[in-house]
């Protein structure tokens, strides 16, 4: 019995986090609704700030979901509907920051940094390989004689 209850609760919890879209918000047209869902997954909820409006149960997220669907029913393309929201809340509502001069540092800094580190590490490895000690040379006759003498002394 207990595992069953646990499984049920888990299922409910998972279902709850999957999306916060309420049944009455949904559009009758499944194609339009799918488009709206796809867009709202990329829009930030400004109250919770790390959730999309699709996941968030916040009041504001609900309002934006409804407004977004209104625009789409009115015939907005995806880009127009997104621009409508962005014109009010700014680029910050986009969970994926747009590519533009102001965000070049954001987009290009990590790969550049990685490339820089790769070049540095490569150079260090090559230098270490070049300066490694030369192979051992056998003892010459004077050294052999000295070794024999030392061995005798210790006995």
């Amino acid at each position, binding site marked *: 019995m207990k595992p069953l209850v646990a499984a049920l609760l888990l299922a409910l919890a998972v279902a709850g986090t999957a999306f916060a879209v309420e049944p009455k918000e949904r559009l009758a047209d499944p194609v339009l609704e799918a488009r709206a869902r796809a867009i709202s997954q990329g829009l930030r909820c*400004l109250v919770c700030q790390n959730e999309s409006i699709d996941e968030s149960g916040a*009041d*504001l997220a609900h*309002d934006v979901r409804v407004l977004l669907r209104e625009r789409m029913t009115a015939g907005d393309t995806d880009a127009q509907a997104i621009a409508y929201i962005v014109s*009010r*809340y*700014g680029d910050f509502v986009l969970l994926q920051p747009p590519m533009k001069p102001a965000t070049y540092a954001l987009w290009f800094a990590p790969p550049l940094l990685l490339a820089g580190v790769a070049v540095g590490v490569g150079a260090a490895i090559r230098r270490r390989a070049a300066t490694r000690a030369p192979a051992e040379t056998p003892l010459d006759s004077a050294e052999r004689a000295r070794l024999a003498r030392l061995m005798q002394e210790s006995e």
Partner: protein
Amino acid sequence: MLRKLFYLVPVVAFCALAGYFALALRPDRDPHELPSVLIDKPGPEFALPSLNGGDRVTSDGLKGHVVVVNFFASWCVPCREEHPMLMRLAEKEHVPLYGISYKDNAEDSRRVLQLLGDPYRRIALDRDGRTGFDYGVYGVPETFVLDKNGRIRKRFVGPLAADTVQNELLPLLQELNKS
């Protein structure tokens, strides 16, 4: 020489990072605060019913003067915290404050203002939050400064603090009123 400079790279990188963290972790900085995209743009238009009856409160009606528009709600706890400051602004500084009751019902808004005092010249009812959405409001209280042409010059998110009022709001109003 060049090699020695090379050893300074980590030191410089560390200082840059430490400097950034020092700025980003300033105790008075709220990372949740967002810049408004509407700064220096014409304030969104609205024509909303008035809380105290009479003509609708419209964005056109606010033009011609420097005004402060404050979004509030009876259900909003930080608004209560802010309220004494609004009263002071209205009574002592004679700031033309206009209220927009955001997603609140008229009865509750009226009651809270009766209880605490009404600092507003006029109050508009934004029952469904549509005007708030147009202004990019994401949490009340929010306060906007509109210039004589109806352009948004400044947005304050959250309760107005005494030092914000002294150092930012009042000087800005003074400057806008001069021009």
